Every structure is written in C-alpha cells, then in structure tokens.
C-alpha cells in the first residue's frame, strides 16, 4: 500500500478545463428530417387504431373521442418536437435544444462522447433516415437520441464531431503532459488509451468476428431452453384438463370429449406428444427466423480500443462498446449449444444501452451471436486485452457441494412429504424423490464448477446441463462478499460474490470457506490497488476521462490486428491436462466435466 500513501500526500488537481476560446463557432447544425413527421403520423394512427375499432364495435362514442384526442396530442407533440429541436456542434460540445413550453438545452462535452451510434428501422431506412444515438464513455450509456436525421447529415455530423473531439483530446493530453511531466506509468497509460480511443476515426478497423448464416441459423435452432419443454408440457396438460372441464359444460364440448374418448389412452398420449412437438417446432421456427432477422450480417470490429457491432435486417443497429468499459465476458452454452460445441459470447459493460431501458431483445450485451467454442476462446483477447498473456490456475469447487444439494433435497423432500401426507397418504413419499434428483444436480454442478484467479482476471466456469464460462478483469471489482447459509456453515462451504459497477454481480458458489476467504482477501487487495490507481488517474487527468485501469493498454500496437487474430493459440497454456478441444482457451483449460480431476 505504499502507492496509496504517496497519493494522499499529493495535492489534487482540479478538473482542468482546456476548452479553446472560440467555443462558439458552430461546426455543424441542423434539425430533424421532416420525413419523421410521416413516421410519427403512422405511429399515432397505429396506436389509436385499437381504440377506434373498440369504439366502433362497442358503439361507444367517447372511446372515439379519446382516440381522436390522443391522436392529435401525439401529432402535436411530434410537430412541436420537430419544429423546436435543433442540434449544434461547436468545437467543444454538442448542444441539443428542444421544447416548446419547457425549453431545455442539453450540452454534452465532446470529450465525453465516445461515438455516435446509428440505428434505423426498415421504414426509416426506406426514407433514408437514421436515429443518432450519442454514446458517452462515462458509464451513462446513451446520452441523447436524435430521431431521426437523414443519413448524409448523420454521417457528416459524426465525421465533424469525431474530428473536433480528436483535437480536444490532443490538447488535453498536451496539457496533462505539461502538468505531470512524463508521468508515472499509470498516467501515461491512461493518456495513451484515451488517445487510442480518440483517434478512432483514423485507425484501421479490424474485423474480430463476422457471423455466417450458418451460425445465425444454428443460433435459432439451438435457442431451445430445457424449461421450454417443461412449460409447454405443463401448458398442454392444463389444456387437456381444461378440455375435460369443458365437456361437462355443453353439448358441443361433449362431442369433443366423445371424439377424444374414442381413442385409447396410448393414442391420446401420442396425440399430445405430437401436439407438443408442433408447439416446440413452432417455437424453433419463429426463433430461427427471429434470429436471422435480428442478427443478420452481424459483424464485430475493433477500432482503436472501441468495439463496434453492426447487425440487423429490418432494424439495423450500430453499437459501440468501449473495451475499457467491459466488466465481464461470458461464453454461454446452454445444453443444446454445449452438445453441438457452440457458444454465445456476451459482454457486460458499465452503463451501456441497458441503462436506457433497452431490453435484452435488442441484443445489447451480445458480442458474438453464436460461434464454435474454439473461435469464441480465440477472440476473447480482443475483448479483454491481456488475457492472452494470462496464466489461469484452474481449481475445482468443493466436492462437498454434492452434500449441500443433497441436504437441500432432503429438506425439500421431507417438507413436501409432510405437507402432502394428510391429503395424499403414502403417495406423499414420492416427494422424497427430490433427494436423488438434487444429489444428481449436485454431481453435475460439481463437474462443471471451476474457478481461477490470474494476475488480472478472475475466471469462472459453472453450469448443470449447460456450461457458462466467465472472465472478469479484477481491476473492475467494486466489492467482495462471502456468504454462508446455515447448510454451508455446517459443511464449511461459502459463496463468494463479486460486485462490479453497473453490471450484475458474479457468484462463485460452493468454495470451501478457506478458499473463499483467501480468494476474498486476494480480490479485495487487487480491488483496493486498482481503486487507488483509478483514483490517481482521475486526479491526474480530467474528471471526465474514462478511467484506464489497464497498464498494458499502451502496449497494444494500433497497427497490429487485434490479439484475437494475431494469436491463433496453437500452444496449450497452463499446466492443466490439455485435451485437444481445450487447446485454444486463454490461460489454460478449465477442467472439463467429462474428465473429473
């Protein structure tokens, strides 16, 4: 902790404002495209159609009045927005002014803007429009939304904006260098990474991954959860029950029942099975089509330190993901994808589009929709630089995990049997079946559970039927929690939870308490050092910069292809038993469930 004492003695630099004097010169300005009014009109019509139909069908004139009122209100709002919204780009900031009664002007400093994202639905594209999303680096995600500009205006705005931003950051960097001198390794790393991000427009763009149609097709085909079977089966069961109930109600329904009754139970069972298959294949087909449409032409590229994703057939999306903001990368393999050797790569980031209420349907966290597992491992270093140099000593969780789930199964079974005893009699003993089931789940979970703490990454593998592998940069850790339930206390087990900013916490279940405490100590120590380094970076640089907590960032040669392409991973790393399929995993292979240690 010697570094910390140095920091606290250092005087704190206030956030330096290095804006040029001529900040009022307008580089670009504009309004929304008038065609947006047409879209708004269609929107308003679409939204009032239900009310109008209901009003006509039910003969309720007041419903029609409400619909008309809503329609006019929406149109008026759209018109007001169109007339009043104006954006202006100066040398230092982007200003968006809008509002008729309540006027507001939002000013977004250029050095906070990471990039402009474009998104356009099929209608907007037909009209040559695009929604412009102003994305900031400070973790707040999408800062402003211009719906919509013409494509050429949007491109022009982006070009001018990135150019202006580059100049500002260069000026800031020069100033920082003047203040801090050559500076510590940390500070210069911060400058370099900011510079890398800022010069993004000049830099070559490296293709990290392009989804093939086969991959996207398979994504839909394997998009079948185990739970879907259970739910569908249950729904059909309910339906059959409902049919039985209906038969007592009316003659027609009785006819239906008689029709059903002419089959013997076996045929009826087969019929239900066919129905189940129909429902499931309907799900698969819609899923496949949906995936093909949503992720059509998916392309992941890296420019400087910013990842770009472009995808979509009807609604095209262009999303940026600054690499610094990635808090966790997960390779997800639910059962079917695991069986076929494919996985989805997802990245959790601080802030990000989800903060704006965008749901998972937008694919906000999907970095690669689907790819073969070895490809997924190979491109990880492009997302988490430094992972390729990492040695990850994989360790298993505690075997006592099986004991824990068995105890839970016993408790559930006993409670269930006791609760059902008075009604079901000895049949209630069937509830005790939870014991072997939970024991089996425990065995499966144990075979999949592994974790590793390297120099800069924490890795975790878990799953029961599927498998999930997660990598976390330890520098992003906010706090660490070790938790023990009563059963875990009995068995000397513990669950470790790692919290990061913004994203969901990562849980490492079923460690021995000794391992958990040791890991907690180690992680907390790393987190404290990283926090001190972030803090110092922030004190040195302006407060608006993205924290750069990777010292190694500056070593990334911008002229070289991303690490994922550069290193094909031909040599197995780590000292674990490396089987053929495990070659490619950065930092050594996690133990595979097919070969328990």
């Amino acid at each position: 902790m010697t570094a910390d004492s140095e920091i606290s003695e250092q005087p704190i630099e206030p956030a330096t404002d290095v804006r040029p004097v001529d900040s009022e010169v307008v580089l670009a300005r504009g309004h929304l495209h008038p065609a947006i009014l047409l879209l708004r009109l269609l929107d308003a019509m679409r939204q009032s159609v239900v009310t109008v139909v209901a009003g006509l069908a039910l003969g309720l004139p007041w419903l029609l009045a409400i619909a008309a009122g809503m329609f006019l209100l929406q149109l008026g709002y759209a018109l007001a927005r169109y007339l009043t919204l104006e954006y202006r780009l100066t040398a230092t900031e982007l200003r968006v002014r809008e509002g008729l009664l309540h006027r507001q002007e939002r000013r977004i400093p250029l050095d906070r803007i990471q990039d402009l994202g474009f998104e356009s639905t099929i209608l907007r594209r037909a009209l040559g429009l695009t929604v412009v999303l102003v994305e900031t680096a400070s973790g707040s995600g999408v800062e402003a939304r211009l719906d919509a500009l013409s494509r050429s205006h949007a491109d022009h705005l982006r070009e001018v904006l990135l150019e202006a931003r580059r100049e500002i950051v260069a000026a800031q960097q020069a100033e920082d260098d003047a203040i801090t001198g050559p500076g510590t390794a940390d500070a210069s790393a911060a400058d370099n990474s900011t510079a890398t991000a800022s010069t993004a427009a000049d830099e070559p763009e490296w293709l990290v991954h392009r989804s093939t149609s086969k991959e996207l097709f398979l994504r839909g085909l394997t998009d079948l959860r185990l739970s879907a079977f259970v739910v569908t089966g249950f729904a059909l069961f309910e339906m059959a029950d409902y049919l039985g109930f209906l038969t007592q109600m009316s003659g027609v329904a009785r006819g239906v029942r008689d029709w059903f009754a002419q089959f013997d139970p076996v045929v009826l069972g087969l019929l239900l099975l066919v129905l189940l298959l129909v429902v499931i294949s309907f799900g698969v087909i819609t899923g496949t089509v949906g995936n093909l449409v949503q992720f059509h032409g998916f392309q992941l590229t890296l420019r400087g330190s910013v990842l770009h994703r472009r995808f979509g057939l009807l609604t095209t999306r262009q999303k940026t993901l600054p690499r610094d903001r990635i808090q966790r990368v997960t390779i997800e393999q639910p059962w079917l994808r695991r069986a076929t050797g494919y996985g989805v790569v997802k990245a959790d980031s601080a802030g990000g589009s989800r903060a704006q209420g965008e749901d998972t349907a937008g694919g906000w966290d999907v970095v690669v929709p689907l790819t073969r597992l070895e490809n997924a491992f190979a491109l990880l270093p492009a997302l988490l630089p430094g992972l390729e140099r990492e040695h990850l000593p994989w360790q298993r969780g505690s075997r006592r995990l099986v004991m824990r789930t068995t105890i839970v199964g016993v408790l559930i079974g006993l409670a269930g049997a006791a609760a059902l005893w008075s009604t079901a009699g000895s049949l209630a003993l069937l509830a005790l079946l939870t014991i072997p089931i939970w024991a089996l789940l425990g065995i499966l979970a144990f075979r999949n559970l592994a974790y590793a703490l390297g120099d800069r990454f924490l890795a975790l593998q878990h799953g029961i039927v599927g498998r999930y592998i997660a990598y976390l940069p330890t520098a992003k850790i906010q706090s660490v929690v070790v938790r023990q339930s009563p059963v875990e206390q009995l068995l000397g087990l513990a669950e470790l939870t790692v919290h990061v900013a913004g994203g969901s916490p990562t849980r490492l279940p079923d460690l021995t308490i000794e391992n958990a405490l040791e890991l907690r100590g180690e992680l907390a120590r790393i987190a404290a050092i990283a926090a001190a380094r972030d803090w110092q970076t922030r004190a040195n640089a302006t407060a608006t910069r993205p924290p750069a907590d990777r010292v190694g960032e500056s070593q990334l040669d911008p002229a070289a292809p991303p690490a994922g392409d550069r290193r094909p991973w031909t040599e197995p790393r780590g000292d674990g038993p490396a089987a053929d399929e495990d070659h490619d995993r950065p930092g050594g292979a996690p133990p595979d469930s097919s070969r328990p240690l």
Partner: protein
Amino acid sequence: MTSAVATPTERLAPRVIVYWLLADGISATFLTGLAWFIGRPIAAEWDKWTPTYEWLLLAACIAFLAVAVLSPPLAFVRWRFGFLDDLLLMRYGILFVEERAVPVRRMQHVDMTRGPIERLFGLATLVVFTAGNEGSAFRVPGLRLARAQELRDRIVEARGDGRL
C-alpha cells in the same frame, strides 16, 4: 496471503441491543397483538376454525416474539467491522453469515443516518455506497455518534479528495 484474510475485530456499541429490542420489539408486539386480539376473534367466526389452528397461531405469535427478543443480542454478537489498510470489512448475520470487503477508494459517497429512536440512544448508522446497481450499499448500524463521525472522516480522508 493469509494476512489479508484477517477478520475485523471492532464491535458495535452494546446499547444497540436495547435499541434493536425497542425498535423491533415495538413492531413485533404490535403485529402479534393484532393477530391474537383482533385476528383470532375474527377467524373464530369461521366454521372450520378448530383449536388446532388456535395452537398454531399461538405458536407462531410466540415464535415471532421470540425472534424479536433473541435476534438483537445474537446479531450484536456476530457483528464485526473494521479497516484493513484500504478496505472496510464487515461480518454479520445470524443464520446467513456474510463478510463484505469494500475498498475505501471505490466508495462513491458515505451517508450517516439517524432515526428518531436512534438519536435517543445516541446511535448512528453509516451507509457506504459503491458504484453498481445491486448490492451497492453497505450499512454499519449501531455506532456511537462520535465513532460514526470518526469513521466517516477516516473514509473521506482515505479517499483524499474531499468529494464525499
């Protein structure tokens, strides 16, 4: 490495037991009173009401009160907190034991809250926030006011920029 595993040692102010007894006790007494003296006569009108239910209700009420009486001392016995270099450590929980570690420099801001009864006892609760959605707030209850202020100042000082 084991040095970093060190468990925190500082306890809460003992009078927090009385405070918890009072604060939780009032609501527990009120709820059981409600259930027994108002809920029971109403339920007794129900034609399927049997003495078995009455015994169950009595047991539930007693258990509820017992928890309210027993949990404060147990919670006090379990609670530990303290600083380890730049880390704030906490350990607490009766059934579910939790140990948390938060680097001081990861804290976004520190609150000191004092409810009316807490003020009566001269107690304060320190709430520490880190960035993040879930599990971003950490509470250290039952601190003497002076100690809470000390801790807060220490955190502010350790962060060094006075921005808390």
